[in-house]
């Protein structure tokens, strides 16, 4: 075990225990518990003593244990209950002094375990007992004897809520996208499309770099960035064999793939997990962003940065050769099953893009390929097993943590510390996006957005009044900014794959990825200020 992991475990445990030892004024007891889970998950996600998806599973488990109504904590804590003592036949009862709040309220236990608030008339208040009058009370009504007990203000969610985060509609949306992508790989649709994209650019090296950026971008909008990069590498690396060992074109070609993949992932909700996380957070707030709306919001910045990447790559790595042959084998598969895939893919995409016309959520449409592809034998058990379940769990952990933070009041408490309205809406959104970009250079993009989405939502509930703060814009900015975090080999798996080819050096990646990332981030700020808020009007 290395130092980083040991520090991570210590930090995580310390973070988990802290809220049990220290009482923060204004934060409920469940809020403290949630804060502990959040700190533990954050420390583990940042330092990775265990793979990040396991941290997500751990978070879900802790939430079920400590926060759900059926969990041991809520099951075993027996709230102190007193029975009203009848004083006079005229509905007057005597209760322990602590049972009645200063506003004249008592909490009546319900069989389900939570409490109903009941307004009573205070007749007389003495040092240890209070006499109250209420027609709703009787000698057998169980009344919470300490009205400041945490259970009084907490109605715990069912454990189903936390487990159900794995079946969150946004995860279903992502699952549909993943299955379509897997089937495309199986029938080599990805390769055939790449060939289609590269044919018109001929042998001009400069145009080939553009063709690669666009082909990778388009594919990664529908497939995972990593899978796209892996496939494209097997296509382009053999093309480099004929080039001089030190021709900069090699670097430009190999860098075009991860950069195209990272940028292309921004384009659709299913392009990369961070988009889905942001969408899930928005959906929880009742703000729906249809598939096509996301594409319209994201496409301009994707196109601009793809073209910019082309210029940057050619400027930094000017090709020496005049001609590069790109003879790619493979055509479109014409077997009946492949045709089945084309039909299902086409239909799903069509329905996704026409959500405004038919009004059926893209999350529901995403289940069409999940059902149709196995039903017609286009994919089998093997592809179902090969789905990225670790990514689904990772996302589920984030979603359930978001739920816990919101329902326990931790959200309001966290952001209640800062005078947000003094900052102004744009400053808050820009700050969140910048933080996302910075973190994403070092962390998994999904983890970055998972950590920032609940914070953005919390800020949103408090700062909603501040001029110009728009939650949809804020979350999209956070998600898009994370995709531009591509400076280092560790920033994203596509970068790591490109480094693994042995063709490029770290400094090449840092130069190109850093420059394009910073320009992309600047554009995110411009979009946040002028473009994205237009969609919320």
């Amino acid at each position, binding site marked *: 075990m290395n130092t980083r992991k040991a520090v991570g475990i210590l930090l995580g445990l310390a973070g988990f225990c802290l809220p049990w030892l220290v009482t923060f004024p204004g934060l409920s007891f469940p809020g403290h518990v949630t804060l502990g889970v959040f700190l533990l998950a954050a420390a583990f996600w940042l330092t990775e003593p265990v793979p*990040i*998806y396991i941290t997500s599973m751990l978070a879900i488990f802790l939430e079920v244990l400590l926060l759900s109504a059926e969990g041991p904590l809520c099951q075993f804590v027996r709230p102190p209950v007193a029975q009203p003592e009848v004083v006079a036949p005229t509905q007057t009862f005597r209760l322990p002094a602590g049972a009645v709040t200063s506003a004249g309220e008592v909490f009546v236990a319900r069989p389900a375990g939570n409490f109903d608030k009941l307004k009573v008339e205070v007749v007389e208040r003495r040092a240890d007992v209070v006499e109250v009058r209420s027609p709703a009370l009787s000698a057998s009504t169980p009344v919470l004897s300490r009205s400041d007990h945490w259970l009084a203000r907490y109605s715990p969610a069912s454990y189903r809520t936390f487990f159900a985060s794995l079946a969150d509609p946004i995860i279903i949306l992502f699952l549909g996208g993943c299955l379509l992508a897997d089937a495309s*790989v199986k029938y080599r649709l990805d390769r055939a499309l790449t060939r289609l994209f590269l044919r018109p650019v001929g042998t001009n090296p400069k145009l080939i770099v553009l063709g690669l950026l666009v082909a990778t971008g388009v594919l990664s909008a529908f497939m*995972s*960035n*990593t*899978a796209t990069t*892996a*496939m494209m*590498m*097997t*296509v382009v*690396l*053999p093309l*480099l*064999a004929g080039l001089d*060992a030190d021709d900069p074109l090699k670097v430009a070609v190999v860098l075009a793939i991860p950069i195209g993949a990272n940028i292309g*992932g921004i384009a659709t909700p299913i392009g*990369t*997990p*961070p988009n889905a996380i942001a969408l899930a957070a928005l959906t929880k707030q009742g703000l729906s962003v249809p598939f096509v709306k996301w594409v319209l919001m994201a496409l301009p910045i994707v196109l601009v940065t793809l073209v910019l990447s082309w210029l940057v790559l050619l400027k930094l790595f000017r090709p020496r050769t005049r001609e590069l042959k790109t003879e790619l*084998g493979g055509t479109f598969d014409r077997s009946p099953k492949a045709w089945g895939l084309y039909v299902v893919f086409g239909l799903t995409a069509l329905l996704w893009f026409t959500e405004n016309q038919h009004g059926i959520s893209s999350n529901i449409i995403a289940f069409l390929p999940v059902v149709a592809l196995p039903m017609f034998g286009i994919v089998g058990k093997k592809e179902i097993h090969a789905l*990225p379940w*670790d*990514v689904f769990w*990772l996302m589920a952990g984030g979603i359930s943590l978001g739920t816990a933070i919101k329902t326990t009041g931790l959200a309001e408490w966290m952001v209640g510390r800062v005078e947000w309205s003094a900052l102004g809406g744009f400053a808050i959104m820009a700050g969140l996006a910048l933080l996302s970009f910075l973190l994403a250079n070092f962390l*998994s*993009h*999904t983890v970055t957005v998972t950590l920032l989405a609940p914070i953005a939502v919390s800020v949103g509930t408090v700062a909603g009044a501040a001029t110009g703060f728009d939650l949809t814009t804020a979350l999209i900015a956070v998600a898009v900014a994370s995709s531009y975090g591509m400076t280092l080999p560790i920033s*994203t*798996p*596509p970068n*790591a*794959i490109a480094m*693994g*080819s*042995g*063709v490029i050096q770290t400094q090449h990646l840092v130069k190109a990825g850093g420059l394009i990332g910073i320009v992309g981030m600047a554009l995110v700020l411009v979009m946040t200020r002028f473009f994205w808020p237009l969609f919320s009007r």
Partner: protein
Amino acid sequence: MKPIFILCIEDEPEVLEAVVRDLAPFEARFPIESASSVAEAREVVQDILNRGRLGLVICDHILPGEDGVSFLVSLHRDPRTAGSRKVLLTAQAGLSDTVKAVNQADLNHYLAKPWRREELHAVVRQQLTEFVLQHETDLYPYLTLLDAARLGERIRQQPLPADE
């Protein structure tokens, strides 16, 4: 990552030089070592194993002292070099020697002298691809030089790295 070496054994200096020259395109990824006798080759193998792995041996049969086939047999018996790909490049190996090489050294290819450059390239490409497929998990660095179709097929079947 430990480098994968190619070892050429040939007693005639001009021929050795020609083999090494023809293999030049592979040298960027696969360092080439050479020896002119079996005794020298054993030392070179020792040296290679200290620094990396022996991926491919291209060996003449008639050599001063011990012959090439028995050297290949001894390589095959050593677990450290049992998986190395073995190619006999010779004009004078009789049937019995060749049978011995196939049966006891698991000979992968028999290349007759004089060879054509393209032929040698194809054989080396195929053998190194086999070695890499059997012994490597990270295949991207080899896509440029080796059989990209086969490596690509394997990459498609491999699980993808980490999360985005």
